[in-house]
């Protein structure tokens, strides 16, 4: 395995609170040394002057559609998109066809991930069989097979007794229970946020209460069971308040937010543009403000794309019939920068923490830091490079990006996984042999 020497970069490693100009030597798949003016011999020398060198990013919420919907994305195409976005570890959601609700399915996803040889692929198992919200899935066996958490993502577990049982059972393995909070009895066939805009468009709305009631219920169940609980893609001001209270009470509750809930509002769907149809829906400016404030307060543990690829032809349907989802793995980093750094809510150290060590901690995986001896998962970022997002150039199989044509700042130049270069920006020519 080749030795790689990355020199002159600004090394930011949130896990170790390290932020300083330094050289990094990668050898044997590990971070061998970090220091100034390293003069080690290397097979490859990367001049990272003016760039950020940080732990490879972690996204704990992606949909790679395999098995079942390989025309939208495969684990291979999704993995290629991931490393292009700087991600060295991603967590696939179990709402595939069939769903990932038993150990062989978990192993299948892992195997396809290894074959793709791009990013580390993790998977969450379904909390209930067939994601039907009725019977517990084989949580223990999937846990042993390496599932990093359990969720019925795509929908929440509606039945309170089932959820309580699942949490109690999962607590035996000290594994993570994650939830897409949404009370279906309130949401019904909703396709966007419920409010003035849904009234004007004549579309069934999704009441913010639907998200908040389930989250509040779950927090009470955490109080009772002590299970580690993760609220997926929170989207409302009320949800932020519930998280704030849960954390104040010292409960083992974490949460994630997406780029779209940080940047976009329900106004975007006023032209029935299905590229903005997403679940949970885009909410109001006040909700966006509350979520940004939550980031500033440190209440948000992880940034997650909820990368949800869909075919063009599906997104060309009527707004009611089009599927939910936005594909954003490859442009997530500059979007986060725009929402969080350009607004002064946090700095690179704070933002990268939500993309590295903090999600690693939620997942209980030994990733997300680059001290000596750590696995050499590394991203090199040009924090100031301006570029135009071009969905046509995505490695992802899908193009459903509402960000197409946006001019953004911050570009992933190289991604190394276990010491191997798995992505190298074609426009970056400063690599030296």
């Amino acid at each position, binding site marked *: 395995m080749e030795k790689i020497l990355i020199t002159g970069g600004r090394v930011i490693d949130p896990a170790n609170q390290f932020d300083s100009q330094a050289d990094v030597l990668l050898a044997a798949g590990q971070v061998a040394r970090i220091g100034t003016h390293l003069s080690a011999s290397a097979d490859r020398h990367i001049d990272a002057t003016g760039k950020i060198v940080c732990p490879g990013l972690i996204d704990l919420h992606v949909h790679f559609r395999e098995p079942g919907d390989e025309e939208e994305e495969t684990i291979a195409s999704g993995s290629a998109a991931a490393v292009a976005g700087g991600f060295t570890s991603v967590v696939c959601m179990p709402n595939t066809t069939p769903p990932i609700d038993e150990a062989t399915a978990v192993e299948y996803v892992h195997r396809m991930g290894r074959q793709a040889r791009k990013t580390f692929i993790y998977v969450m198992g379904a909390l209930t069989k067939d994601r039907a919200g009725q019977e517990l899935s084989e949580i223990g066996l999937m846990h042993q097979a390496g599932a990093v958490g359990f969720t019925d993502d795509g929908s929440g577990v509606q039945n309170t007794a089932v959820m309580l049982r699942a949490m109690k059972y999962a607590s035996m393995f000290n594994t993570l229970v994650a939830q897409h909070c949404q009370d279906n009895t309130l949401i019904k066939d909703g396709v966007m946020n419920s409010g003035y805009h*849904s009234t004007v468009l004549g579309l069934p709305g999704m009441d913010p209460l639907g998200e908040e009631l389930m989250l509040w219920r779950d927090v009470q169940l955490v109080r009772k069971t002590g299970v580690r609980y993760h609220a997926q893609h929170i989207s409302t001001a009320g949800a932020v308040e519930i998280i704030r209270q849960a954390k104040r009470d010292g409960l083992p509750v974490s949460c994630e937010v997406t780029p779209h809930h940080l940047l976009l509002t329900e106004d975007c769907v006023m032209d029935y543009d299905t590229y903005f149809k997403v679940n949970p829906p885009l909410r109001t400016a006040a909700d966006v403000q509350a979520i940004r404030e939550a980031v500033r307060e440190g209440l948000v543990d992880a940034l997650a794309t909820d990368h949800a690829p869909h075919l063009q032809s599906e997104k060309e349907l009527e707004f*009611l019939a089009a599927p939910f989802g936005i594909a954003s793995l490859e442009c997530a980093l500059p979007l986060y920068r725009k929402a969080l750094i350009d607004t002064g809510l946090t700095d690179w150290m704070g933002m990268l923490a939500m993309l590295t060590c903090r999600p690693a901690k939620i997942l209980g995986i030994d990733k997300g830091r680059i001290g000596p001896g750590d696995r050499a998962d590394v991203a090199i970022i040009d924090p100031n490079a301006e570029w135009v997002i071009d969905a046509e150039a995505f490695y992802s199989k899908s193009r459903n990006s509402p960000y197409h044509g946006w001019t953004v700042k911050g570009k992933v130049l190289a991604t190394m996984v276990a010491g191997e270069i798995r992505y190298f920006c074609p426009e970056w020519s400063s690599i030296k042999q």
Partner: protein
Amino acid sequence: MKKTAFQWMRKHLIGLRDLSREELEFILDTADGFAEISTRSIKKAPTLRGKVVVNMFFEDSTRTRNSFTLAAGRLSADVIEFTKKSSAVNKGETLVDTARNLEAMGVDIIVIRHSAGGAPTLLSRSINACVVNAGDGYHEHPTQALLDVYTIRQVRGRLDGLKIGIVGDIAHSRVARSNIYAMTKLGAEVTLIGPPTLMPPHVRDLPVRVSNSLDNVIEELDVINMLRIQFERMGGNPFPSVREYSHFFALTAERMKRAKPDITVMHPGPLNRGVEIESEVADGPNSVILRQVANGLAIRMAVLFLVNQAAMQTESSKS
């Protein structure tokens, strides 16, 4: 001929929300001209000769479809009827593909009725033909509202200062939405009347008043528009029983006694007699329900004429 500075520019009519008062009045004035044709012994004008209009109806409709067919026929257009039941989950050919196929056959105007709000918007983005919305989900039903305000103008002279009540299932009504935009832009004051369970979210952000009691407001109304209770569109049971609904919100002969003597009674049809309106009222002297239907024809002729004219102007300005 009177020279007017105003020129109609829209090749699609999707909704009334974006229309100005001037545009609305222009449509109504244009309809006045077409109303005259219906009084002739030969009820035909050559205005759309050589043009093809397709009625794409993905939802049941008798009144609106027949009205559009007749309107296009009177303007000498060729009319294709296309009906297909749509479902929430789309199977088979997509809406856009269907429309592109029709367009390939040389269709000039697509009149679309669809159960999904936004379907006409989607079409207008995807094809070159003119798109006229004949009702989409509970988004808008512009020609219905135009014929409503046309009828009111005919009966009352103008809308300015009129107090208009719209009663019933506002939440699931495209007619109510288009009505609100047209009536308020033309100067009327609109009150929505019904139980809170039939009001849409954030209804108070619309330029309306809201009342949960028909009895409290009926005395002040100049016009009352009774919406049909659409059992097929309401989820759950937004009111306990038809009996209870009628008790509080039906326009009965008894309630009419407390209304202004010259109140104008409207209904977009089809009627649920005995549910939202009693037969005695629907067929009574204050009712303009059949006049609404008759006026629908003139309005639809005007709309087809105007969108086609706008399309031809864009064509000629290109060449």
